[in-house]
């Protein structure tokens, strides 16, 4: 079929390639129900089955609650709100202790969460979105477009990320977390884009993509309907890793004092504790460092577990091998091979 024929084929009412135009009437509520079942209920059940996604999901939920409800319910940290130098679990006024200025450590950590969440969300969304666009276009179009895009992302990859971000942050002094997030990811997309590109390179040779191409479906539609959906698992996993990188980098930037100190941050807490209060030097105030450490660790843990769990959820190779199905496959194939040989 030629490129121009496809239009007439879909308009003459005979046969249509578009599955959306099926004859059966579907009410809106039915459609919503199918959608929920397919994209929310079933994945949730499978996800809950795996301990990684379960723990990771619950932890992320805890951080989300902390960033929304916790901030409203828990008092804002200020100087001398509680007695100074309280040890953890010493008094319910400051459950995890207080520092030399009488600031509640737990309050500080909780009130740092919302900005962190915004940063993580903005940064990870931005980086994965750019990577998906760049990777799919380069991988699918191939040729000159691919060359240009790949060279550009290679150049971006060989500019060291964190120093680059620091130089920019140092001069611009951004204060909005929605700006800081994407800024941290300023060249993170390059590496991810490259691995998405190599996935697309194999995907575009798949027969169903070739079929679409032969039918004359336009490139944009092939990308959005055929290619990107089958990469979603990979993208989601990398979204979680991107989020983890934002957390790590933001903590580092705040620790060094590159970003303005107006916003509370776990990195800032570490900085105060280590550089101002000398919390490690046998003063018995190690908890000043340990509390923000635990907050960073658990957040990182949540994201990595989620990424690992999602990988398992979507990756049929890992999944079948784990449930022992692939072993059976191999023996069957072996039989087939030996029969064929005879």
């Amino acid at each position, binding site marked *: 079929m030629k490129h121009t024929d496809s239009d007439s084929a879909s308009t003459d009412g005979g046969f249509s390639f578009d599955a959306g135009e099926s004859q059966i009437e579907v009410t809106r509520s039915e459609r919503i129900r199918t959608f929920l079942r397919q994209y929310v209920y079933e994945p949730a059940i499978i996800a809950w089955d795996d301990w990684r996604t379960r723990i990771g999901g619950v932890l992320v939920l805890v951080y989300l609650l902390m960033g929304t409800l916790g901030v409203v319910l828990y008092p804002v940290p200020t100087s001398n709100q509680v007695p100074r130098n309280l040890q953890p679990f010493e008094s319910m006024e400051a459950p995890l202790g207080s520092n030399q200025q009488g600031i509640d450590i737990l309050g500080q950590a909780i009130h740092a969460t919302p900005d962190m969440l915004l940063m993580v969300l903005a940064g990870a969304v931005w980086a994965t979105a750019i990577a998906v666009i760049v990777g799919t276009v380069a991988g699918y179009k191939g*040729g000159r477009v691919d060359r240009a895009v790949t060279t550009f992302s290679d*150049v971006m990859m*060989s*500019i*060291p990320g964190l120093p680059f971000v620091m130089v920019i942050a140092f001069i611009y002094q951004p204060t909005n977390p929605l700006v800081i997030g994407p800024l941290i990811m300023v060249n993170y997309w390059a*590496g991810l884009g490259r691995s998405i590109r190599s996935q697309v390179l194999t995907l575009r040779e798949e027969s169903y993509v070739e079929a679409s191409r032969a039918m004359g479906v336009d490139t944009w539609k092939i990308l959005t309907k055929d290619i990107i959906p089958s990469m979603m698992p990979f993208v989601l996993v990398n979204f979680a890793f991107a989020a983890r990188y934002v957390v790590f980098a933001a903590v580092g930037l705040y620790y060094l004092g590159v970003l303005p100190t107006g916003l509370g941050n776990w990195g800032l807490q570490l900085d105060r504790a280590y550089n101002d209060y000398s919390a490690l030097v046998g003063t018995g105030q190690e908890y000043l460092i340990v509390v923000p450490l635990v907050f960073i660790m658990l957040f990182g*843990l949540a994201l990595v577990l989620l990424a690992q769990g999602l990988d398992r959820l979507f990756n049929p*190779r890992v999944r079948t091998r784990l449930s022992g199905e692939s072993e059976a496959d191999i023996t069957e194939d072996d039989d087939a091979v030996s029969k064929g040989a005879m």
Partner: protein
Amino acid sequence: MRFYVERTLRAIFTVWMAMTITFGLIRLIPSGPIEQMRVQIVRTNPQLTPAQVQSRLQDRAERLNLNLDAPIHEQYIDYMLGLVQGDFGMSFQESEPVAQVLGEALPWTMFYVTTATVMVFAVAVVWGAVLAYKEGSLFDSASSSVSILASTIPSYVLAFILLLVFSYKLGWLPARGKTSPLMQADIASMTFLVDAFKHSILLIASVFLTQVGLQVLAMRGNSIQILGEDYVRVARLRGLADRRIATRYVARNAILPLYTGFLTLIGFNLGASIVLEQVFRYQGIGWYMFLGLENRDYPLVMGTFLVYTLALVIAVFVADLTYSRVDPRVKQGDKSEAY
């Protein structure tokens, strides 16, 4: 041949772009560094006349290799020529050429970053491959869990824990500096080498322990995938020795996807060294970047950024050239047609 020319051109292009970025950041942004320095001069010395302020500002700009009176394109050319000749300007605080400060610091940073990164890959390749063969065993799930746990913190956060345990509680390893105070830097002396090594152990450990886990898992995943490939089955059927299959057929192909990760990892480790060196008060280039940021020492900050870029570009370049030997497909380039 074309491959080598292309890679060389790309390396040069990257460095040129980094240089241009620094120039643009210093010179082209409204209320950028030059304006900020002017404000700072006026604030600290309110009695100065505008002409005096301008001449002080010019003094500072000269340390950045900039002549504020010249037209902007001449400034750009002069600036770039200076950088090409290895002149990164004069540090405001150290009163020394930035190139000299960083030249002394760079080997220290490169030493522990490359040691740690190479260790990460050596261990990940071996351990990941072993896990792939023992998949589903207790050893596998234990290793995988530990790997995940270790990768949930950045190196500089683990650094605090290691410092607390090994330096402050146990007192086994020094907590700060790249050598003991008063230690003579003499590469031939054993005491110096041992001392320097002792000071770098915690840095290497921080980087290694937080990164090896994810690489082990990646290697394990790749190996599992390749173990299921047809050519491995054919190799088995041909009766090849297991060892030969494991090294030639499986490991070699499983390592390839780690390569891009290796590049990003070197870059990430170089970047993270700024925070890590601040924690350990380790006077590598990251430490000077931190000093520059803290004192608003623009020549030092820009110089360090360029040195980081150079280091990474060279690392990528070397890795590219060696990689083309491992995977011959790279050299042929991508011949796929455009759609």
